[in-house]
């Protein structure tokens, strides 16, 4: 009896030891990332919140004045902030559905048995490798009112073509179009990979049962690609809410702040107006918006794959 007990305790201790070593290995593997995460994300995140509670003095941080939530109160009373929110939402609405929809359409198109699909794959993806400054300068050049190629051709159709980036009506759609051209390749590649992962036997079974193309798309393609679609939608929402480089270079927020997005406003507040505390508060607002839309997105089209 005593020996049985001893044996079982020993067994349990051995099992415990193996669990511990697994946990230890896991932590060791995660440690490099945790360090990077802590230094470059967690610390700035906490420091940003700390700063948002102060009238921050950049040259002499120790002289910063603690004002609790005054920066947040100022934010909800600031018309320029709401203009920036509006501009950002307009950009998100113009880009996200198009980028996801167009990415999906291109992926399904290239997945067909067509000639030159390798070439098309390269063509659709290639703009994505450019930097934001290159893309912005190319498109600003295309949109240029007198010397730009776009207005050269539009000039044949109408006598006074619009000044795209200087117009309240066209500036944001013009920036959105440049962004779509630039980044749709990323969604395209992810969605193409997801489409190629859908088993062909499902479509064969559907065909045998007499399902139409539309039904196969609705009942097989979309549900099977749901996680990939959720992924690109979430990534796209985050990227579009954070838009900065394109508007900064192409329009500088104009005309009349109509394309000044939240991150650009945050940047101006911090680095031009030296209001780091207020800028940090705006950053926190954006943070909570992004957390919220990501959660909502996950609830609606994400969830389990089963």
């Amino acid at each position, binding site marked *: 009896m005593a020996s049985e007990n001893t044996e079982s305790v020993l067994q349990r201790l051995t099992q415990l030891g193996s669990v511990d070593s697994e946990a230890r290995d896991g932590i060791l593997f995660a440690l490099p990332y945790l360090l990077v*995460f802590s230094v*470059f*994300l*967690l*610390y*700035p*995140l*906490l*420091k*940003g*919140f700390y*700063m*948002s509670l102060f009238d*921050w003095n*950049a*040259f*002499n941080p120790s002289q910063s004045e603690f004002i609790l939530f005054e920066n947040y109160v100022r934010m909800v009373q600031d018309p320029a902030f709401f203009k920036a929110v509006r501009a950002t939402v307009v950009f998100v609405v113009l880009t996200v559905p198009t980028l996801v929809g167009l990415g999906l359409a291109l992926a399904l198109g290239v997945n067909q048995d067509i000639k030159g699909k390798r070439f098309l794959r390269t063509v659709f993806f290639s703009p994505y490798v450019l930097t934001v400054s290159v893309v912005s300068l190319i498109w600003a050049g295309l949109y*240029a*009112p*007198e*010397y730009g190629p776009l207005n050269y051709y539009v000039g044949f159709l109408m006598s006074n073509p619009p*000044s795209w*980036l*200087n*117009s*309240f009506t066209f500036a944001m759609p013009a920036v959105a179009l440049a962004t779509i051209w630039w980044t749709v390749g990323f969604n395209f590649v992810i969605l193409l990979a997801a489409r190629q992962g859908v088993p062909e036997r499902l479509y064969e079974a559907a065909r045998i049962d007499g399902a139409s193309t539309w039904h196969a798309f609705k009942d097989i393609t979309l549900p099977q690609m749901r996680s990939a679609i959720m992924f690109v939608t*979430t*990534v796209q929402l*985050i990227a579009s*809410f*954070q838009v900065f480089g394109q508007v900064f270079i192409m329009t*500088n927020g*104009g*005309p*009349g*702040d109509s394309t000044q997005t939240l*991150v650009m406003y*945050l*940047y*101006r507040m*911090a*680095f*031009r*107006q*030296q209001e*780091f505390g207020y*800028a*940090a508060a705006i*950053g*926190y607002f*954006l*943070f909570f918006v*992004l*957390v919220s839309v*990501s959660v909502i997105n996950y609830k609606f089209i994400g969830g389990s794959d089963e």
Partner: protein
Amino acid sequence: MKVAGAAGLTGLAGCSGGGSGDGGSGGTVTFWTLFSGGDGEAMKALVDEFNEEHDDIQIERERQPFDQYYDKLFTSMTGGDAPDLAVFHTTEIQRFTDALTPLGGMLSDGSADAYVDSILQETEFGGDRLALPLDTHPNGLYYNKDIFRDAGLDPESPPTTFDELKTAADTITAETDKQAFNPDPYNRFFVRQFIAWQNGRGGNFLNDDNTEAAFGGSDGVALAEFYHNITNEWNWDQADSTDDRGTKAFRSGDLAMTINGTWFFGVLQEQDYDWGMTKPFVAPGQSQEMTWANSHTLGVPNSSSNQEAAVEAAEWLTQNSTIWGTDAGHLPAAQGILEGDELQSATVWDKTLSTFSEMAQDGQLAYMPSTENNEAYKRPVNQAISQIYSGQLDPEEGIKQAAADVTKNLQG
């Protein structure tokens, strides 16, 4: 994780390090500039000359992009990683006063007397000399003499008043297919000459203690209507405020008259048409004659570990700046250079600098007000006039709204 990445934005300020100069040591002075084109080449030549003449101190020049210069400088100075020496426009010094070293005790004997007094005064803040002036660079009215000839106008009699401008510009519009006049060829710095013309009308831009806009009254509205009429009534230019449109048009010979700074000399030297420059007092209602001006100055950040050498370099660069006048076209702030034969016998003197020098001597330079942060007034005014110019905003409503925005910004 992606959300956390987004949230990293909130910590932008927390990561405010960067910059490249590491404070220097021994005889090396790290020096940040924002000059490109002809200015960049002239500054490179000046620094090379300094380095050749000095064995004990060597300047390491580093050029930053113009548009982001002050953002980068600010970041480097708050992060304690600033250069030993940097260029500051006089109107930007105010926001850096806490981070700049007073130069008084480190200057050579008699150094303060080496500069044109009115320019030197702009570098004094709260009783401290925070920088040494390199130049002043006012605006002038540049015009294309070939277009004047084509329109039947006398190329040696450019307009000097609003009435003369109207006659010349109307004639050019009627007689040629060129654009006649653009008041800000960059279409994003309207505020500069607006301030000068507002002063020229006898009005103020801000109130005496810089806490309120003072341009929302009849003078400001009259000027706003002038900008509106140029494009929307008189057809002197297209109703379009796209960046740099005017400077491209002037360089390509499609624009007859524009207002630009001293540096335009370097650009126009490369053109194959005949051009001239005159005083830009051409807005309506000018009872006093004023033009915009700013100065490049050299300042030493607190965090510099090589301040003595940096000050010595700053004194040499600002007092040996002949090439800054002859090649870059700026009006040197050093009295000896300005009055020297080398500058006064150079092409630039006849072409532009003698006229700029006259305006400086006659007290016709309007510096923009130094507020805690000039962005507070620059952006609202630039944005408003830009929209007025492109016909997207009513002039009176636009300038009054800009004045209200400026007051709000100044009062924080």
